[in-house]
């Protein structure tokens, strides 16, 4: 049975990956946070590209003005990408209050055009970006800038956290982001980060000089830019203690759209940067990219297996009904011998599946500890464990489908 074999392959690869990630983490646990030798405050410009962020821009700019960083060294550039709401007016109000903030408006052209517009308006030594729906912890920038003491580091990303959880969909994203924070830290230890996310990533000015401006990049410019950095063998670090808060997608539809964009972007950018899959040239980065593509196939097969089992269960019930008529005992009886156990007999899938669960819970636990998270996450973790595998498969299937039919998607 090919499905059960894939299930074992999935568990094997999952265990392999977990051992690789956890052993890397524990071997390098002293390097998780960056200590500062000498306080130094180079000039920084944070570009805030926004489109219809009227509801969020005030909080974003308030948090930027509240940053623990010398005012004269911090410049904030808001680029309104042709919003149809009052984003521009609200941002302008800040411009009147302080010289630190400059606000520009341009025709709508997509996030990357807004970022590039901002790049032209600054002479700062370090340039960062922050999405218009995100806000920062007051120490976030200082913690990021510490990493630039190392001259080899060309870019630093932060830890993204979900600011508010109001429903299950947002709760699942909360856990997903926690796991992502931990994994990104490990990937940064391996110099293999493959994304410089919109919510606070900072770059040395020369990065843009050497690599050029942002590109459309299949609506995932943050991914493409990281690929470009990696191709040039530029180091990207992750300041895990630098916290940025962002809004989660509140509905299944908006989440679907965002994840479809991310996954489609990953696959298409990977196609554009095939050389990153050369393991001799790009080592662990190639390994992790291969892994993410293989994992996508496995997640699809895994969900297929679960649905096949559920379908088989109902077919069996219908068959039994046709054989003996309505038999309440058998109609409601449930034989849990599918994959996990059978009348007290434990199957290998249960033992190995349990180990995979332990690995995921370890990621969550470690990430919570490393990002000083005090929130109770039990309920969200349960929903994540129950639903994420299905959501992930749906996103991957859709991404492959959109690529196959060559369908483009919008940023929003």
């Amino acid at each position, binding site marked *: 049975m090919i499905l059960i074999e894939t299930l074992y392959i999935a*568990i*094997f690869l999952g*265990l*392999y990956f977990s*051992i*690789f990630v956890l*052993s890397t983490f524990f071997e390098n646990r002293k390097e998780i946070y960056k200590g500062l030798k000498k306080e130094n405050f180079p000039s920084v410009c944070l570009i805030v590209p926004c489109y219809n962020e009227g509801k969020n821009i005030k909080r974003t700019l308030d948090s930027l003005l509240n940053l623990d960083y010398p005012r004269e060294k911090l410049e904030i550039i808001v680029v309104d990408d042709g919003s149809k709401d009052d984003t521009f007016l609200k941002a302008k109000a800040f411009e009147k209050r302080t010289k630190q903030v400059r606000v520009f408006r341009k025709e709508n052209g997509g996030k990357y055009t807004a970022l590039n517009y901002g790049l032209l308006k600054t002479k700062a030594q370090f340039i960062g970006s922050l999405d218009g729906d995100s806000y920062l912890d007051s120490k976030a920038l200082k913690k990021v800038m510490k990493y630039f003491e190392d001259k*080899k580091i060309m870019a630093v990303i932060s830890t993204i956290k979900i600011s508010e959880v109001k429903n299950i969909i947002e709760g699942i994203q909360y856990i997903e982001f926690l796991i992502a924070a931990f994994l990104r830290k490990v990937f940064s*230890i*391996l*110099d*293999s980060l493959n994304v410089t996310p919109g919510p606070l990533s900072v770059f040395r000015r020369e990065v843009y000089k050497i690599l050029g401006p942002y590109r459309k990049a299949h609506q995932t410019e943050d991914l493409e830019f990281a690929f470009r950095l990696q191709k040039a*063998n530029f*180091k990207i670090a992750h300041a895990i203690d630098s916290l940025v808060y962002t809004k989660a997608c509140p509905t299944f539809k908006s989440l679907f759209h965002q994840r479809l964009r991310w996954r489609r972007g990953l696959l298409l950018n990977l196609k554009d940067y095939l050389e990153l899959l050369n*393991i*001799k*040239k*790009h*080592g*662990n*980065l*190639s*390994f992790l990219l291969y892994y993410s593509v293989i994992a996508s196939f496995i997640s699809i097969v895994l969900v297929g297996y679960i649905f096949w089992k559920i379908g088989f269960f109902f077919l069996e019930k219908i*068959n*039994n009904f046709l*054989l*003996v*008529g309505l*038999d309440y*005992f*058998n109609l409601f*009886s449930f*034989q849990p*011998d599918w994959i996990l156990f*059978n*009348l*007290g*007999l*434990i*199957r*290998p899938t*249960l*033992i*190995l599946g349990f*180990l995979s669960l332990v690995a995921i819970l370890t990621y969550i636990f470690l990430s919570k500890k490393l990002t000083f998270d005090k929130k109770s996450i039990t309920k969200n973790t349960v929903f994540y464990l129950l639903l994420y595998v299905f959501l992930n498969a749906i996103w991957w299937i859709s991404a492959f489908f959109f690529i196959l039919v060559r369908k483009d998607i919008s940023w929003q």
Partner: protein
Amino acid sequence: MSEKKKFNWKRHFLIFLITLIIFSSGFFLSNFLAEKRMLQITAVQEDLRIDILSLETQFSILAQAPCENLNESTLTQELYEISRRLASISSTLGRNNSYFLRLKKYYSILEIKHWLLLKKAVKECDLDIVSIIYFYSDKKTCPDCENQGYILTNLRGKYPFLRVYSFDFDLDLSAIQALKSIYFLEKNLPIIIINDEVYYSFKAKKELEEILSQYVELESLEEATSTEESDSDGIQP
């Protein structure tokens, strides 16, 4: 490329080995637990053997069936319980596992002994019990057997006067060969023998009920005993 970015083949090989060890341990642990479970079944089978021997001895000592004290339904329940456990073992270890096959042979012998004893009890104590011998085989040889087994299980739950003894037609056991030879059985599965009458090929629930009604009045018995619990996986270990 930095040292840390480099793909360290040695390190990955080591991780591969560790994963392999953990992965195999999962299988070993599962098998180990299954084998422990089988030991429990062996113990239950031993109990049943003692009970059957004890009943046989009772018959012998009293030189006639101790009809007043006869309680064969406990024995039947024990027999069905073993069948249920065997079914669960087979789905974990596979139907061709040698230890499972040994247990199955032993179980088949116990079934035959039970059947013989029951025949004697029916005759001497005038019991209203119908025995069904059911021969099945694997899915390839007999695609209908699973469904037939399910129907028999259902009937067994519905009519407590029924005793169903199931045998794997292909099991290499002389006692089963003997059983096959006394009824001159051909391999046309599934085979159902109801009170010494042989029926070949799949029989739907209604057909079986019609046959059974020749031996007992089904409706009265069904009403009287409708609360009995049925087993969902007892017929085909």
